Each structure stands twice: as C-alpha cells, then as structure tokens.
C-alpha cells in the first residue's frame, strides 16, 4: 500500500478525481431522477451519454475544427458542440421513453420486464453506433459520410481545437482551464436542476409523481408529461456530461457508455438513489475515491476500490449517503 505516494500527490489526485466525478455526477442525475419517478433503472442511459459524445465530436468535425482554429472560433465550435450534445442526448432519452418504456408501463408490466427492456435498448443503441458504417452503406451514404463512419468500432478522435491553459497551481498540480470549466459547469447545472425540481411547477409535478403517482393524477398532474420531462432533464445533463468527457479525454467510441454508465449508476446509489443532491455527492466521492484507490493499490485496482466502497456504504447505510428519495425531499 503506497501511502506516501498518495500523500505526495494528494492535490493532483483530488482535483482530477473531482473532475471525473463531475462527469459521473451529471450522468448519475439521469439514473436517479428516472428511478425516483418510475422506480426504474434506466440501463440505456449510458447510451444516451454515448450518443452525446458522438454528437459533440461530429459537430466539431463538421465545422472543420483543427488545432489551427482561432480561439474565438474554437469557443464558438465548442458551444455548438455542447448544445448539439445536449439536444441529441435529450432526444435519444425521449425516444427511449416513448419506445422502450411507455408501452410497457401503460400495460402495467412487471418492473423486471421494463428492466429487461432497458438492457435490450442499451445494446441496440450501442450496436447501432458500432455498425454505423454498415447502416450508411445500406442507405448508400457511406462515401459522403466516410469521415464519420469509417472504422466504426474504433476510437473516434475529438479534434484538438483548444489546448488546456495551465491556470494556477494547487500544491503540485497545475489546474488547467478545462478542469475548472468542467467542475464549475457541473456544479452550476446540478444546482440548476435542483432548483428547477424544487421551485418550478413541473418540478413540483415530478416530486408529486415520485411520491404517489395516483394522488398526483388526482390532483391534476399530467403524469405522461412529467415522465417525459424527467427523461428529458436526465438526457440534457448526460449530454452536457458527454461534452465535458470528450473535451477532457479527447476520444470516444461506441462502447464508451458501458463502463461510465456502471460507474455513474454506482454513484447514484452511493449518494442515495432518487436523491438529486445524492447524485452530485456520490459522483464526486466516487471520482476521488477511485483516484485514491489507484494511488494506494495500483491502477488495476481502481474499479475494485470503487465497488468495494459502494458495498461498504450500503452495508451501513442501505439507502445511500443522503438517503431520502426524490418525492420526500423537503420543499
């Protein structure tokens, strides 16, 4: 156990852990909200994230971003990429709800059946992206879109339009502009969603349906609309997370959703499934814990540490760190 290494690099590990944790937190939000309202674990949410990464990447590629793009142009491209990612992820989330879940929920299908549907949807969405070269070939578009679809199962490079600017030092670590952007935006977005759920009318509707769907319907809440909004918000946040992810790690792939989805779901459970603030807390804690774990035991133990942490927390606090569910949070 390399404690000295951990102590020597505590700032680096903490800050980079918080940055990755922010990505986890934004994706965890989608899992936690859908669970709070529908008691359903949306396994396909990881693919909602993945499509966002591709939307961001393809947007910058289509706009012709390269290392030589001017800073102003680059910022504009990145903004468009962020918007594209959020819109695409939101759209996929809505389609998912309409196609994979609503027909089953309407028929009062057992929750297990809906779960299986979500797993199937996850595979279908991921494979569609992995087979995009065959699909475009079928439609005859493979030549014009070749830059986007060749080597469909390989890493796709996010064009390096910005170089992270080293801003200041905390301890030994050079905090750079991208880190701050991700951390700051993630916190702002989480606060935004939290306030939306607490104060707005739709937000109250969400909490009402989460607490008791029948009474909510009796009080005039349109549960279909509420469910759609829940999926949409989760999708938008995942899209933002997707943008930050490609900005930081500069590559994506058709299967990038899988591991990230598992980690984000873990973060949601860690913080208390159904609890928005829990998702934020869980994500940040998971990101930092992973880093500390790999520093202490070696990078190969990273995932083991993350899941062990989950098991330990659930043993002592089964509802997760912040425990309370969406419907029961104070107004």
């Amino acid at each position, binding site marked *: 156990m390399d404690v000295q*290494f951990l102590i*020597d*690099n505590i700032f*680096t*590990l903490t800050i*980079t*852990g918080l940055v*990755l944790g922010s990505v986890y937190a934004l994706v965890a939000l989608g899992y936690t909200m859908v669970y709070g309202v529908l008691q359903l674990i949306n396994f396909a949410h990881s693919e909602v994230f993945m499509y966002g990464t591709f939307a961001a990447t393809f947007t910058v590629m289509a706009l012709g971003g390269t*290392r030589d793009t001017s800073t102003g142009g680059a910022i504009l491209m990145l903004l468009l990429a962020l918007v594209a990612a959020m819109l695409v992820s939101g759209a996929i989330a809505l389609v998912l709800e309409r196609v994979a879940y609503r027909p089953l929920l309407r028929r009062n299908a057992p929750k297990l059946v809906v779960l299986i549907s979500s797993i199937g949807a996850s595979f279908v969405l991921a494979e569609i992206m992995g087979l995009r070269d065959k699909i475009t070939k079928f439609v005859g578009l493979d030549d014009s879109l070749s830059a986007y679809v060749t*080597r469909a*199962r*390989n*890493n796709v*490079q996010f064009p*390096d339009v910005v170089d*992270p600017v080293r801003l200041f030092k905390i301890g030994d670590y*050079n905090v*750079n502009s991208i880190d701050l952007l991700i951390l700051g935006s993630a916190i702002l977005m989480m606060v935004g969603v939290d306030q939306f759920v607490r104060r707005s009318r739709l937000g109250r509707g969400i909490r009402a349906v989460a607490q008791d769907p029948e009474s909510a319907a009796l009080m005039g809440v349109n549960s279909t609309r509420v469910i759609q909004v829940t999926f949409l918000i989760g999708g938008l946040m995942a899209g933002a997370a997707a943008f930050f992810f490609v900005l930081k*790690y*500069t*590559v994506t*792939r058709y*299967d*990038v959703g899988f*591991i990230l989805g598992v980690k984000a779901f873990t973060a949601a459970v860690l913080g208390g499934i159904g609890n928005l603030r829990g998702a934020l807390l869980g994500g940040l804690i998971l990101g930092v814990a992973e*880093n500390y774990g*790999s*520093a202490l035991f*070696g*990078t*190969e133990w*990273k*995932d083991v540490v993350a899941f062990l942490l989950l098991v330990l927390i659930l043993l002592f606090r089964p509802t997760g760190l912040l425990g309370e569910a969406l419907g029961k949070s104070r107004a």
Partner: protein
Amino acid sequence: MHTKHTLRTLAALAAAGLALTACGTTGDSSDTADSGGGPACDLKIAFMGALTGPAAGLGVGAVNGAELAIDQYNDEHPDCKVTFSKNDSQSDPKQAPGVAKSIIDDAKVVGLVGPLFSGESEAADPLLNEAGLPMITASATKPTLSEQGWTFFHRILGNDETQGPEVAKVLTDVANSTKPFTISDDSPYGQFLTGAASDALGDSLVGTDKIATGQRDFESTVTKVLSSKADAVFFGGYYPEGEVLIKQLRSGGWDGTFVVPDGVKDKEYIEVAGPAGDGTLVTCPCVPGDKITEFAKAYQAKFNEEPGTYGPEAYDAANVFLDGIADGVKDRAAMNDYVNGYDKDGITKHVKFTENGESSEIPIWLYKVKGGEYVAVKQLA
C-alpha cells in the same frame, strides 16, 4: 410366405447395396485419377483475426498481405485457384474458439494464417492443434505459444522473448534513459512483453503500472509517471489505449521518450495521438514493408495504400502454404509436414521453422513516428 418374401427382398437389397458400393469406389478412383499428380484445385487457405472491432487496424495489414500472395498465386494458376477464407474473430479470446471451430469444420481449408493476437491464440490454438490444422501466425508474439507442444503451431516472426530485451536496449541505448518506467495493459501480449522488458531493465526501473483494456482515464498513471520523474516510458499494449495514454501524459506535462511495441504500430495511433505521438519509438518483429520494393509496389497497386504492419509476414506465411499446394499437398497432415520441412527465402527473411515452430531467423526493427508516419530507423536484431 412372409419369410420367403422377406428373404427375397433382403437378398435384392443386399445385391443392390453391393452394386452401389462398387459404383462408389470406381467413382472415387476416377476422381483421384483426374487430379493425381497435379495440385488439388478446390483448396482453401484461411485467415483468422480482427477484421472488425477495435483491433482491426492490425488485422488489415495481415489479411491484405496474405490476400496479395493468394491473388498472385491464382494469377499464375488460373485453372487451379486457391480460395481465401477470411474469418473475423475481432481478436477477441471469447469469440476465438467459435471462429476456430468453423474453420476446422471447413474440410477444404488446409492452412491457417493466424490467429492474429496472442490472446486469441491461447484460446483457439488448442482446438486447431487437436484438429490437425497447420497454422502459421504472422503476428502473435507471446513466447509460451510455442512451448505447449502444439505440433501444428508455427510462427513466422520473432517472439517477445527476443523483443523484450530489445525494448530494454532501446530504452537505455537509443532513448538514453536512466529512469525508465514501464506500463502494461491487461492482455496476455502486453503483460508478458512488459514483464520481459522490466526484467531486462532490472534496477534502473523507477516504476511500473498496469492499465485495463478499454480504459480511457489514465490520470493516476500519469501522476505516477510524473512523480517518479521518469525520462522514458515503455507501454506494452495496443493502440486504442496507447494513443489516449500518450495524449494524457503530454498534457500532464511529461516530455520524456515514449516507447511502444508492435501492438501500437497502427496508423490510428498517429492520427489520434497527433503531436503528442511525434517522436514515439516503436519496436517490431516485423520488417518495414516499404523497404521491400516489389512487395510494396504490388501492395500499393492492389490496396491503394502502403503495406500495413504484419503485411510482409502474412505474405510469407501464405506463400508457405501456397508452395505446399503447388507441390501437390492435398490434406492438412501432409501440409504440416511440408511446413515443418520448409527451407526457402521469403521476403522478410529466410523462412525455416525450428522444432517447436519458432522461426529460425528473428529480425527486430526499430521505427520512429516522424512527420505523420512510421519511419524505419534500424534493425535491432
């Protein structure tokens, strides 16, 4: 009455049966009489490796090299062509046994170029060996593959027992490193090679780390490298991880020399790593395809690009089988004997196999990423 009837029917059937068998044998011998002496004309050579999937970049060079050899043979023997059977395993050890089975079940296949990767070889070679299908791999470099007693296994390029110490030498002599750091991935290939390199480096090694295939976030590894003040890093693994790792190392502020083996040598590495990949040193038991002008010209004409990694080796491997077919070999057992006794010049080396299937000659080359491509620097061994 019944008994008489039955006896008569039985007798008739028996006579018919005998007659048919006689017909059958005449039929068979007439077939062999036709093709006896010359090459058999419906044989196949198979390829097994990643044609799709994350490792497909390395499969392309090999499958194309083999295809070039087979096409050239078919041009010279238009009446008696050999079919090329391409089998996609995505170089996934989980899929490999299934793919191997379908190759084995195809009785016309008399030789296999591949499997591509060491991991899938470990999974599939026991089946292939038991079925008696001669294999020549042009790319799987894990040394233990030739130590399993597989009489049908052959390797036409050097293995990592040779490449490991050469990597260490590159770090110390070419990169002039006094503080080397090694990183391995979790594949059988990466782990063995990095282990061999680390052993050869001995005490000068300042640190090691291990990453997982599919991992994209290497922050803790970058921190380890930076705090160990390493001046050179060797990464034993494949290009999907290598290309992301070097970018994060560079943006973390590390500017030492990055050394990688043949698993990273793919054009996608150069594309994705970009400026971060400039100056990367690459070791490979493969010879530079563009140095073999005849081959390079033919390859360029057919595939409209430069020969990929393992292209020349796969070309040589396919030619061993093709020479066997031209010489009259018709079945797998005879082909294996032929390969074992092969002793001829190929385009990469003089092709000859030792008792346990290893190549007698093992050239190892050093390449450097420069100006957006792999430039051959020198032959290390």
